[in-house]
Structure formats: C-alpha cells, structure tokens
C-alpha cells in the first residue's frame, strides 16, 4: 500500500486560496503522515514541475519553493524516473495522446502501478488514467 503525490495535491496542500481543496489536502496529508495510506512517494518529474510552478508564483515564489515538497525528507520519498519508467510513460503518452496528459502525469501513473499505489491528486484527467485516486 502506498500513495503517489501529484503536483496538484502538493499545490493545494500549501496554497490556501481554495479553502475546500486545501482542507481536503490537509486531511489527506494528516492521514498519510499517520501512515494510513502506506508509503508516501513521488518522482523527480513531479518535483521539477512543482518547482517550475513555484518560480512562476510572483511574490509568493519564495514561500512556494520552500513549501513544495515539504522540506521533510521523512515525509515523501522522491524517486528518480528511471529508464523503464520513462519508456513506459512515453509509450502510454503516445498510445493515449487523446487524454492530453503530460509525461509527468504518465510517470505518476506508471509509478503508481509499479507500487500498487493510489494517486493523491485533484486533477480529474490524471485521476481517470490512474487505477486509484485520493482524496
């Protein structure tokens, strides 16, 4: 049992603007931190995406860079997307191009299948491609 974090979850966990999504993300995070969803993992594509987004947040960028990915190595294990993961993500991206998902999204899907994990996301399109979704 494990959970893979998506960019949209990381974003809404820390950005309070949408109170409903933020509250749901905080609730899920407390469950993850208590070990109720097993291991908490992600990958370096998501990390890069979060940082790319953070740098576009104007005056909030410093807070975002500091917050995204928690600064707590004990929380999430960020794996490198290895060659097999990349190849499978690319194959799925080509085969299912009509879904409009990014390579990062497909890396999350492949990683979640590899770990039999659910995906923590608010992104409906990614959620439909993944086998199990939280919150």
């Amino acid at each position, binding site marked *: *049992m*494990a959970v893979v974090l998506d*960019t*949209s979850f990381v*974003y809404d*966990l*820390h*950005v*309070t*603007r*949408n109170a409903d*999504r*933020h509250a749901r993300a*905080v609730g899920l*995070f*407390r469950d*993850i*931190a*208590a*070990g*109720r*969803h*097993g*291991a*908490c*993992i992600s*990958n370096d594509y998501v990390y890069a*995406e979060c940082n790319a*987004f953070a740098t*576009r*947040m104007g005056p*909030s960028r410093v*807070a*975002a860079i500091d*917050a995204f990915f*928690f*600064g*707590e190595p*004990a*929380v*999430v*294990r960020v*794996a*490198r*997307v*290895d060659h*097999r*993961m990349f190849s499978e993500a690319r194959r799925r991206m080509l085969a299912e191009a009509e*879904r*409009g998902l*990014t390579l990062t999204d497909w890396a999350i899907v492949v*990683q979640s299948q*590899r*770990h039999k*994990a659910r995906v923590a*996301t*608010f*992104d*409906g*399109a990614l959620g439909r491609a993944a086998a199990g979704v939280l919150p």
Partner: protein
Amino acid sequence: MAADTSVKVSPETKRGLDELQAFLTRESGQKVTLQALQAALVDLGREEQDRLLAAFADRAPALSKAQVDRVLSRSFDFPLDVAPEELDDLVYGFPHGGDAAATPGARRLAARLRKSRAARPAAPRQGRRKRRRGT
C-alpha cells in the same frame, strides 16, 4: 583512496552475493571480486532507484505532530485560484490537453515566424540548391 568499511550481511544475503559472483565469473569469463560486484550493484541501484524503492515502499512515514505542524505551517495564500486542470497552463504555457498552437503565445510566435520568413532574402535558398547539384 580506499575506504575500508565493514558491513554485516545475513547468511542469506551472503549466499546471494556468492551466487551472483559465481554467475558473473562464469558468464563473463573473468574473475569478479566481491568488491567489484558490490560496486556494480550500487551502480545498478542508482540507475533503478524506483525499483529499489519498491522494496521499501510499504514503509509508511510516521511523523510526529511537530513534524506535521511544521509542514502545514508552510501554507500560504496565492491571489489566484488555480484549478488543478490549469496548473499545466501555468507550468507549460498551454492548457491541459489543449492545443498549444491556439494559445496567445503561440499565435505571437507564429506571427513572428511569418514576419521573419517574409523578410528573409531569396538568395540563400538558391545557393543551397546550387550546392546540392554540385554534390
């Protein structure tokens, strides 16, 4: 510089290392030392981090309340309510699953390309044709 560190291994792990050493020595036709085998395994682990992670994926985080509070204390407001589907628009510059060619940025780029093509002198194209005939 040689590092001399002892690592305790279980009898099962030692047996596995011996088997791998025998296999590699037999298949490669050259003596493979335990030290070389360990170095190769570490290299392999670095290459296949996500597969390695799978072996530890069932280990859930167990955070103290203070660690959870520290993560959540990094929350901040952002003046824009960015929907999950709009994150890609901000990171990659086009809508999720959308048509990059239809974005204002792409239209500006296309206009610039058209302008530069219109301004380009015809002479270089003729030059290239002449060179091709000559080869």
